[in-house]
């Protein structure tokens, strides 16, 4: 971000705050601070869960076995020392050693990343393709029968938790219609894209957690824009509804929705844990649930940090997008 002393017209700048830290740098500092706070929270939470040695080794482990386990995993050190060790490892790209498998955490996580990324992207695309047109149509024809139906359905869908929606989808699409596999276990066989149908049910389940929100946001924005005088002028000029919606309302109603979609990308990750567990989808969400149940703290910590990072970065990207699409904010950043 270069700073110009004079503008194109040769005038000196008038309202420039002196020596402001560039926007991007400020955001990056915020990112680092947030991630640092996240590491403290994650480590603190697993630390107060107590010593896992007995749970991992079993009820009949001897005291010697427990002591050996604690030394092996550094559990004999005080928590702050362990935290610094852990943090130091992460900065060097070392996520630690799994309590259960005794192998590197990364080896446990890495085969599951690909499927989860594809799943989240799929869910996000479904969200966009479904919610934007529906919200737009509903907002343009406010209080019509179409709008009432959309409002009714989105409220119903929003009221159901994801695992209920997932089960209903599985029964209808998987069992009754037999159109899709009920479980997504096929993903673990062969390549990432060998079994596309296995992504559909969990993907839709995750998307349905977000769609009602985006639909209603799109609807509200379209409604506001539709009541603007230039839209009414367009109507008076005799422009038909398709053109009116697509060329006049959508571009003006979209920016806040684009931002929300960016933020929701991070929100989708929460649905991933539920949907993956529900459908037996071999991804990081299922791994997180399994590792928490088996008290494999290093795996849980690494996944929590990973998800936290995605969340923070997605939020940052959404913030940047807000700035980009809102002229007022853009000016402030430039200033």
């Amino acid at each position: 971000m270069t700073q110009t002393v004079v503008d194109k017209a040769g005038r000196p700048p008038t309202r420039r705050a002196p020596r402001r830290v560039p926007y991007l740098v400020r955001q990056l500092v915020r990112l680092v601070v947030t991630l640092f706070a996240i590491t403290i929270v994650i480590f603190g939470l697993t630390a107060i869960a107590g010593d896992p040695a007995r749970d991992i080794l079993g009820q009949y482990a001897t005291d010697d076995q427990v002591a050996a386990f604690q030394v092996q995993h550094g559990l004999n050190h005080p928590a702050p020392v362990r935290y610094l060790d852990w943090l130091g490892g992460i900065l060097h790209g070392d996520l630690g050693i799994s309590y259960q498998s005794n192998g590197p955490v990364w080896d446990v996580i890495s085969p599951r990343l690909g499927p989860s990324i594809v799943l989240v992207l799929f869910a996000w695309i479904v969200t966009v393709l479904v919610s934007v047109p529906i919200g737009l149509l509903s907002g343009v024809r406010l209080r019509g029968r179409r709008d009432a139906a959309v409002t009714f359905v989105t409220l119903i869908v929003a009221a159901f938790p994801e695992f209920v929606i997932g089960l209903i989808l599985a029964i209808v699409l998987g069992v009754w219609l037999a159109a899709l596999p009920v479980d997504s276990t096929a993903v673990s066989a062969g390549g990432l894209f060998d079994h596309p149908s296995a992504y559909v049910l969990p993907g839709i389940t995750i998307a349905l957690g977000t769609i009602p929100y985006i639909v209603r946001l799109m609807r509200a924005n379209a409604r506001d824009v539709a009541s603007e005088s230039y839209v009414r002028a367009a109507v008076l000029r005799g422009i038909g509804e398709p053109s009116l919606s697509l060329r006049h309302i959508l571009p003006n109603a979209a920016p806040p929705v684009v931002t929300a979609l960016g933020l929701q990308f991070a929100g989708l990750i929460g649905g991933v844990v539920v949907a993956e567990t529900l459908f037996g989808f071999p991804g990081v969400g299922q791994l997180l649930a399994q590792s928490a149940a088996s008290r494999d703290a290093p795996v849980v910590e690494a996944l929590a940090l990973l998800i936290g990072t995605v969340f923070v970065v997605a939020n940052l990207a959404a913030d940047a997008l807000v700035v980009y699409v809102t002229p007022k904010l853009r000016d402030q950043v430039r200033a």
Partner: protein
Amino acid sequence: MTNLISRRSLLMAGAGAVVGGGLLSSLAACGDSGSTSPSGSSSAGTPKKGGTLRWAVAAGNATQVADPAKASGTMPLLIATNCYDTLVRADENYKLTPALATEWSSTPDGLTWTFKLRQGVKFHDGSPLTAQDVVYSFTRILDPKLAAVGTAQIGPYLAASGISAVDASTVKLTLTKPNAFIPVIVSSAGFSIVKSATTDFSTGNGTGPFTLTGFDAAARTSLARYDGYWQNGQPYLDAIQIVVIAEDATRLQAVTSGSQDVVDNITGASTLLLKGSVEPYMLKNGGWVGLTMFGDTTPYNNQKIIQAMQYAADRKKIMSVVAPGIDIISPDIPIPPGDPFFPSGLTPRAYDPDKAKSLLRDAGVSGDFSFDVYAYEGDKLDTAVSFKSTAEAAGIKANVITWPHATFFTDIFKKKPAIGISVARLHISQALPRLYGKGGDLNITHFSNPRFDDLVAQATATTDEAKQKQLFGDALGIINDTAANVIPGWEGQVYGKNKKVQGLSAANGAHMYLAGAYLS
């Protein structure tokens, strides 16, 4: 929400090592050898060769290992049972058949056992089975550092120095204490024979009917037919794909919709949904459920209070909640009706709240008797809660405290006097000393009775079957009369299977043995 820990996880009594944490993850992980009576259709018609069997299990964990000596989760146990063999195979009622050993015998004093190995058996890597492999496998199990599941079963009777190879195909076990049931013990999945000097178990190099072609205990395990299997013509299947579906409802739908051929851990009323192209396959007598109390701690050291609790349990009602469709109620002993050693004539105590009330009065309790009982989600909690509701009529107030599974075995088990528990079926020669004997690793009732210990030791040492039955019968009578537990009945495992799946059988501790399985 989702059922990460399989609901019916049993205390793995056979597992010397693993009771706590997420490893206690499946009823299929029953501890000891042989146990159940399968129902539902099995082999009909002639076995057909070929095909891939798709199998979904409830419990999986990314970090489980494929070492059969440490197998405790569902997937590792399926690997132990189908990629490896034991010396002796046990059926659901401990009837033994030869496997890697063709014959076995003991000296009359029950102190020295000799096993003759089958000729011509080859490991998956082509090397022949020798006595040295058995010595290596058993020595590993006794190594305390390994924390093998079989240690607690054989440790009290055998030291590593007592294991020897007489020649290339004969193994001798010299015991420290007589035991007539060594063949039963070595039929457990934890006693699978591995190749000598193996330290990496990821290839599953056993002598069993299937080879291990892929292993990820949290996602997918793949088995393929081993053409060199010693059992004629078996296995029939080309391959088995085992995947994890933790959610009960999805697993049920996976088998009804045909995307899986067999699923495990069907619970409660879901069994009724198995119709049309699918049917239940039941292994009954998987394990017992109950309440256990420290019998040496006030107020449970008062015999009358324990008896009042036993009479206050409406066993039929409790079991209809805990294990619907299984319908096995029990006297207060850890051996199921139908076991060869079950004492004929011993009947469960009838539900009698009035008698319970008068016993409480005799015990000096005025007003209601109230006590705390801890349990975690699933069959244990069901048992405690349904006991509470039937015992209220007798003036017994059970304060059921739900404890998280994650810390139950660290903070509650063996620490709090009264708990709700479920324990996998054990052979009587294991169940009695470990659950009630002096120094027993599972003596959660703090039971202590020298005459009982003596009866069990005598019964275990003698090879005379009639004598065994009589001595064990007397010992069980003592337990039913005086042990501080309420054992209303038995629960089982229910699988859902497509009707085209035939020839399923359980072996070596209610683990599915699939050499004879085929798709019709």
